[in-house]
């Protein structure tokens, strides 16, 4: 069974291409319009979302939840079909609607602007200029939609397996090429990718179930699933309503267990090997507790893996579900042995005990694999990198530093090595010195200023008392230099004090 997703613009070429390809593969051709109509009938205000995004209106909390529900609806719709048959989907975000599935062929169809303008002018019976303006506007709208919903660039070539240009290939020939490509082993469903598809469907169904229940429809949650094990995170202020989640998800077919974690923020913890007893990991748990954060763990493997598999925390603890098939069992047994050796179960166990467990993922291809396989759309407050590049003894430190800056560029959030966690976010000797130092400096500054109020204020009032030009300059320079010193000194004192009291 094949899944081909075509990302298209405003032109007819892609639609025809998708239909021809579906005809050749003998499968269903699903358009974005079909799904949005069904979603609207289902009760998701897709039209309102489109207007808000395309008119660049700010996304409110309520709308962010509607976006979540829409994405879950699209995933459910496509996954339900894709589990039983091949399909071709075409829409503006075709390449993004089924994330994390290795066997999906993602195609971008493009056409030269002149050809599109000619087509639009003829189709809509408008002038060349107006048709050009229309096409430019449509492209801009799609870019905005993609950026708002998925936080990626529509034109980023790394998100596509192939780009087809209407100027060089007829629809017929392009469909023939895609048909051959879709039948290659890389794009054929495997037991593992079927499992990933089922997980994606289960998570989407759970998200929809929470969003469609009257009492929890505006609850901000994040849902992940792996082999029937569902992991839900929700913000602390929703604690009371979140108690309904187990009851609601009890009706979702396919769910075997549930982990609910209260989290106001998310931390991504990445490493090749883990040590649950190490002080660095203890620091990470301490920070997660302090921030009410869920910790997503990414286990990096140097072996090239076919795909990133989303996993929840529970499977490592719970008994394996039945019905995986022999191939999957063997693969899992090998993988389970490896992750056990590298300390993953202990780490997850500790996170669950602390109530801070997010999801677990195994990613092949080492650190480079992480950069390509974790989408930019995932939102984290902090990324923490543990033991990586272990085999590169001499260049390990430099490679890790480069890796940290690569992650910071991609996710635009603070990225730290585990060794720096304590000095940055916890109270230690360095913070104690800073606390005492800033307090001492503040006392000296305040004492000097307040025991000499009269001369200080005379000096400051040069502009009011017809002071000389030099006196006015001196007073002005003093204010501009002195104010930040006081602000940073007092700020450093309070920052460390609150760190000591664990209020951050």
């Amino acid at each position: 069974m094949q899944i081909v997703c075509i990302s298209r613009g405003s032109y007819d070429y892609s639609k025809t291409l998708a239909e021809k390809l579906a005809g050749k593969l003998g499968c269903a051709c699903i358009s974005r319009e079909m799904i949005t109509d069904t979603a609207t009938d289902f009760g998701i205000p897709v039209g309102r979302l489109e207007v808000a995004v395309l008119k660049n209106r700010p996304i409110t909390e309520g709308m962010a939840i509607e976006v979540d529900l829409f994405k879950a609806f699209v995933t459910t719709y496509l996954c339900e079909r894709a589990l039983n048959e091949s399909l071709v989907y075409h829409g503006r975000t075709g390449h993004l609607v089924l994330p994390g599935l290795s066997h999906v062929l993602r195609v971008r169809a493009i056409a030269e602007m002149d050809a599109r303008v000619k087509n639009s002018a003829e189709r809509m019976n408008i002038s060349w200029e107006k048709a050009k303006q229309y096409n430019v506007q449509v492209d801009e709208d799609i870019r905005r939609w993609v950026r708002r919903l998925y936080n990626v660039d529509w034109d980023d070539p790394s998100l596509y397996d192939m780009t087809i240009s209407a100027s060089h290939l007829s629809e017929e020939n392009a469909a023939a090429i895609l048909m051959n490509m879709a039948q290659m082993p890389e794009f054929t469903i495997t037991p593992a990718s079927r499992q990933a598809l089922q997980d994606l469907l289960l998570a989407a169904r759970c998200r929809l179930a929470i969003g469609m229940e009257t009492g929890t429809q505006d609850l901000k949650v994040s849902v992940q699933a792996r082999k029937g094990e569902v992991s839900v995170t929700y913000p602390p202020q929703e604690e009371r309503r979140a108690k309904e989640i187990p009851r609601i998800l009890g009706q979702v077919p396919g769910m075997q267990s549930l982990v609910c974690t209260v989290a106001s923020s998310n931390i991504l913890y990445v490493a090749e090997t883990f040590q649950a007893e190490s002080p660095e990991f203890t620091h990470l748990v301490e920070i997660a507790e302090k921030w009410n954060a869920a910790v997503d763990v990414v286990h990096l493997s140097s072996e090239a893996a076919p795909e990133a598999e989303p996993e929840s925390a529970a499977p490592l603890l719970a008994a394996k579900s039945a019905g995986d098939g022999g191939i999957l069992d063997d693969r899992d047994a090998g993988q389970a042995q490896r992750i056990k050796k590298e300390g993953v179960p202990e780490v997850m166990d500790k996170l669950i005990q602390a109530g801070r467990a997010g999801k677990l993922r195994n990613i092949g291809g080492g650190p480079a694999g992480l950069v390509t396989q974790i989408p930019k759309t995932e939102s984290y407050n902090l990324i923490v990198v543990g033991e990586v590049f272990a085999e590169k003894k001499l260049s390990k430190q430099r490679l890790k530093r480069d890796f940290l800056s690569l992650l910071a560029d991609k996710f635009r959030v603070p990225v730290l090595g585990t060794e720096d966690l304590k000095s940055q976010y916890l109270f230690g000797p360095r913070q104690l010195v800073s606390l005492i130092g800033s307090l001492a400096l503040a006392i000296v500054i305040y004492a000097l200023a307040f025991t000499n109020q009269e001369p200080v204020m005379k000096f400051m009032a040069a502009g009011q008392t017809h002071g000389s030009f030099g006196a006015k300059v001196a007073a002005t320079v003093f204010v501009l230099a002195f104010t930040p010193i006081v602000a940073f000194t007092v700020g450093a004192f309070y920052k460390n004090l609150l760190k000591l009291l664990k209020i951050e």
Partner: protein
Amino acid sequence: MSELVGGLFIHMSWSVALQVALLGMIGGILSGFIGSGGAFFMTPGMMNLGVMGPMAVASNITHKFGKAMVGSKKHGEMGNVDKKLSIIMLITAAVGIRLAVWVMKLLFAGAGDGHGGAKGAGANLYISLVFVIILAVVSLSMLRDIVSSRKKEETGPSTKIVDFLARLKLPPTIYFPVADVNVSLWVVLICGLATGYLAGTIGVGGFIGVPAMIYVFGVPAAVAAGSELYLAMFMGLWGALNYAWEGMVDIRLTMILYSGSLLGVYLGAYGTKVVKEVVIRAVTSIIIILCVLSRMVATPAYLQQLGLINTDPAWNTWFNLASKILLYVSGTTGALLILFFVLRAYWKRRKIEASLTLGR
């Protein structure tokens, strides 16, 4: 009670210093919680303690300079700052501040000279009137927003202005990459001017800058808050420079404000993580309305000092007292409410555990 430099600056007793620190703390909590402002509480609060309006504004804008520097550094790390937008707004914001300082200087010099009024009464009245008008509009709009957002069909902040300006297409338009919006340069410059003028007049530029970015430019709320803080740092710098040049900055007030506000900012920011958005907006608008009432109550005293109304000067003490009580009640109630949320969340955090349901 002796006064410094010919009565320009107040005598700083322990009691006054403690009250200023408290103002700073409450202002800081509100500022950290609401995301902007705090000055709407601190400026009139200092005026109620006997600080002349221009000195209160000058000390507060200088305080804002350092505070925004600390805050924008943090926002920058989170990718919430559109530097291009802030810098373009800054061009006219600087002009606005300079204009505000000039107007203030004229009013400050003009009053109390032969009309029987106290020195600074004209400036005080002017600041109070601008304060009342602007903040009444802001708070009532916020309340209306809360009421309308309770209806299911509401899509968030109104974008009528954004849509209207988009249709106008006033060239040249500029693309702001972090905020992801295209806005006419003229619109940005006009909003910058208004933001700067209000920051220079009442020290509350954020209440214009942030809504302008959201409602007029269509910028996402987080980027609006971060970019405004970045802009506020430069506006604070420029405002401090101008007021310091005119000899109006009371550096003692600035220092005492820091001692309370920086603690308050951290506590208020923590509060935003644990309180629902609608509660944040409701608390904010009620506090602002009470601050507006407080300034309205103080206005007759300034009118009397300028000879514009004929009331018994003895009543001024009562007007001032009533204004002071209203301000403290509003700020303290708001800050206590926020502190309550913060502490409740702090204790609750230790009780909440993950719930694990296995074996369905």
